[in-house]
């Protein structure tokens, strides 16, 4: 069980957290073109390496934060940043893919 560094609680089990996906900034809805908006909605960098991402400390302090994690080695780069922007609509909650 991965330990995720929460800026408020300290390291916590990933099961105490809710993953919010890649960090990206929300385009200005009054000026965004459909293409820009859908980039924001759907496109991912998905790197094999350092990824800036968001977590919600759902069982703990209930704060959102951003952190950089290496997607191959699972290391975290300190320090996490509280209250960063999220990437996913629907708060990433519907990303529970089906199995086989």
């Amino acid at each position, binding site marked *: 069980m991965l330990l995720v560094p929460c800026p408020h609680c300290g390291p916590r089990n990933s099961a105490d957290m809710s*993953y919010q996906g890649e960090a990206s900034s929300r385009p200005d809805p009054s000026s965004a073109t459909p293409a820009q908006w859908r980039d924001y909605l759907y496109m991912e960098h998905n790197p094999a390496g350092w990824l800036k991402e968001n977590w919600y400390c759902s069982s703990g302090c209930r704060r959102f934060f951003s952190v950089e994690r290496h997607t191959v080695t699972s290391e975290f780069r300190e320090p996490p940043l509280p209250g960063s922007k999220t990437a996913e609509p629907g708060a990433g909650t519907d990303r529970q893919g089906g199995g086989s």
Partner: protein
Amino acid sequence: MTKQVIELSEKSAKLSPVFRRNQAPRYSAAALLWRGVRNDSWPRVWREPQLKKSYDAVVVGGGVHGLATAYYLAANHGITDVAVLDKAYLGSGGSGRNTAIVRSNYLTPEGVAFYDRSLDLYNTMSADLNLNVMFSERGHLTLAHTDSAVRTMRWRAEVNKLQGIDSTVIGPDEISKIAPSLDTSPNTRYPILAALYHPPGGTIRHDAVVWAYARAADAYGVDMHQKTEVQDIVCEGGDGPDGKGPGAKVTGVRTSKGDVSAPVVINCTAGWASLIAAMAGIQLPITTHPLQAAVTEPVKVFLPTVVVSGSLHVYVSQTDRGELVFGASVDPFATYDMRGTLDFTEELAGHVLELMPAVSQMRLQRQWAGLCDITPDYSPVMGFTPVEGFLCDVGWGTYGFKAGPVSGEQMAKCVADGATPDLISPFALSRFNDGVLVGEKGAAAVGH
């Protein structure tokens, strides 16, 4: 350009001696006996060729999708000058790590038609490719524990029936007859209210599918290169750095074993799709998550069918060897790390025991993980991309194995015709830009 490839290869089409020349000795019980009597061993199942400087087409990824694509390019379209590149061994990725369930009872008519074609190909694969892939048409039960799940099962059944697929909603009594080990009593925490029963679904020996395609493709002269990692895709004329990105044209790949020029490069990877696409300057709507599976020690066969519970995020079948094979939903966060987690086995065991309390004394003997490329609408990304000559057959989430044969067949057709076949047109990358997603989202949430 792809048209041109066809014409070139047309000469060596169906009646060419290629297959004959490289044809492996046919497998049969008689041949097995004969070799047993003479104590002969079998010849190599596929060659170990040298990497050439150029190919008509390069397939990246030696799994079911890549090998099927190569096979159908050769078998259906006479394009035999094809290389399949894999950074490890054939079938080392998702093809060898999935739980080998096949079915066609999807939610949308497009999905049903697509997977049904795949099931057809699986059905005749042993004979078509002369290798027993042990397709076990044992039926597939998707359990519903809530009213809304029952509704979704009925939705799927009704769509399936309209497409001529054998798929019905059945009640606890009938479920109990099909799989007596399931606890169908009404007072459980997750009562089994109904199930979607799909008799044509079943399991298959996943490795055998890989080997069957590899052996058959090899017989047509397709080159398979194991331990050959694609390190870059060479493009020209694109908007991005190094001439990549939209508007570019593929000229070849750089590999750990040398450069290869090719006018067509097909990305058939799972788990690394975003990375391969990025080599051509293409961004995909994909996040990569591990999907874990586990297997118990063997016991005498007692579970005759595939059982899936969407609400409990578990699916289970029993192999002919007696092991229970389990899978679940993908891990909650994106990672390329395949080490597996304890939480997965805990959740899994808890949920399996909800369904089948009698197996509490069975022991888990191995867990493993594969990588899944998840898209926003639980549907793949197939066909052309904004880079000419660079095609994708990716984003297969947790359902790639089921779709291997049809994907290969259709991708080969796509390359050969230079046009997107109808069967895969709903899965074009452009749909995310157009805002028209595929409707499998509803079913996949409870699918498996």
